[in-house]
């Protein structure tokens, strides 16, 4: 039972931290790309959209190559650590968070954006108002990001190494238990995985549907 608890905690810590980092980078990036007009913008959006379908094993491969002993970041000695897992999952979640945010910002009526400028908002106030206006889509962005990493197995397996008590997460735990014939434990982990997904999405949905009164 203790082991299951450890696995759940590792999963939540790794995927939670990855989502936070992806949000901190992806939301402002999505707002900027969604609002500005610059050369190559369409290419960038196409690239981000492609990133939404990034195969986790491919991300795993690249991170392993970068962090492996002979890779350019090998000196950090991070391979088979939670840090490496967070890096890999951030890379997986980032395009999702960014792309959904871009879509949400682009959906805002340009007249409303102009109105916000005309009201005399500073740059910071402007961003806050626009993000709040796109809040529903931004929450979808976070849900999609979280969904993609909590259930992902390829990258965490490759860069985390599935070290028992260290880097085993729910998905790699299920894999391991199944291989060892411990179907009961695998089923329990699967149930927990689904429950976490449900609870997190429920919480985000409740926030999404809540009326907000401030900017």
């Amino acid at each position, binding site marked *: 039972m203790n082991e299951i608890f450890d696995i759940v905690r590792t999963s939540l810590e790794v995927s939670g931290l990855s989502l936070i980092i992806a949000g901190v980078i992806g939301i402002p990036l999505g707002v900027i790309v969604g609002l500005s007009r610059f050369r190559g913008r369409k290419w960038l959006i196409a690239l981000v959209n492609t990133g939404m379908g990034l195969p986790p094993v491919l991300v795993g491969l690249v991170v392993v190559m970068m962090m492996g002993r002979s890779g350019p970041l090998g000196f950090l000695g991070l391979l088979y650590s939670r840090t490496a897992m967070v890096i890999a999952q951030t890379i997986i979640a980032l395009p999702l968070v960014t792309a959904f945010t871009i879509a949400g910002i682009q959906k805002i*009526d340009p*007249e*409303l954006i*102009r*109105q916000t*400028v*005309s*009201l*005399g*908002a*500073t740059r910071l*106030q402007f961003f806050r*108002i626009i993000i*709040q*206006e796109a809040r*529903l889509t931004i929450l979808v962005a976070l849900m999609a990001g979280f969904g993609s990493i909590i259930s992902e197995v390829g990258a965490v397996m490759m860069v985390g190494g599935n070290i028992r008590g260290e880097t085993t997460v729910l998905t790699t735990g299920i894999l391991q238990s199944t291989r060892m014939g411990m179907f009961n434990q695998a089923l329990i982990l699967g149930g927990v995985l689904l429950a976490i997904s449900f609870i997190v999405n429920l919480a985000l949905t409740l926030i999404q549907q809540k*009326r*907000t*009164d*401030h*900017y």
Partner: protein
Amino acid sequence: MTLLTIKDLQFSYSERGDFTLSVPRFELNQGERVALIGPNGAGKTTLLQIISLLQRPDKGNILYDGGEIKSRADILNYHRSTAFVPQRPSLYNRSVQDNVAIGLKIRNISPDEISERVDGMLKALKIGHLANRNALSISGGEARRVMLARALVLNPKILFLDEPFADLDEPVRRSIIEDTLPILSGSGCATVFVTHNQDETYQLASRFMVLIKGRIIQSGTAYEIFGNPASKEVAEFIGIRNIIPAEITGNDNDMLRLSLSDSIHFLYSGAKPDTNKVLCLIPPESITIATDPPQLHSSARNTLQGTIKKVIPSRYMVWLEIDCNGVHLTASVTHQSVRELGLSAGKPISVLIKATAIQLLPLT
């Protein structure tokens, strides 16, 4: 006192190659209410967006309160002294109250003052009962009121309105104007508004500017513009449907004699233009129609015989297209007259036009 001055303004649209908006000078005085009028595509909204600093011109200087607007800080300060109400309903996905409060929050006003001012404005514009409703769930007319409240609650020095009452039913439009006018007059803020062609909105303006194809063609009071259009385009825009080339061929008892064709002559009592070749403007509403010999009961100096070609009913009046020996005239009469006089296509009639109702423009 001049509040806003625009000099040498130039703007070209990337997607409309040959069209340039060009305004050599525009001045707005404190408390003045200016209406920008003109046909669709004349550049009215663009001009409004440029002077409200929401669109950057290709060239030009904008001076506010004596100082030229140059830096980001100047622009921010300008936006915080003015308010802009766009043409389309554009409200934030939050309550009506929050929509109205947002500009005050941006200006870091204290919550107590915000709530007091917002409540007052919601009441003044009769939307107090909507305060807690989501702004995206209200009707079009209510949305206009919320947008006006959001702008007026800021006590702006200048208010910019882009077709603020477009797409509304006439009673709704009239009631919004009735509720807005006292607030505008009370605040003394200068107003620049774009309007397409809605008579009700004209009462808001103290000065009119006619913009045609990117140029300000005429500027003045309602009487100056509507009673004395400066060009054929302005005359067409304000609805003078009879614009007929004519020649001044002589005098007749202090009046000028105009020849519209070999057989049609008018008497005109007004100033003589520089050229003999002129355009003769006759507002449709100043043409009187008679079915019996008119000499008995009219002071009109010009009487023609004609035939009704077409009867076109509209909401307020009926348009008559009349042929008078090859000269085509359009007259407007009431629905009641059409009924009483039995006016219909093919009917011969007399057309009466006062010598004072005719305006002349030099033909260039």
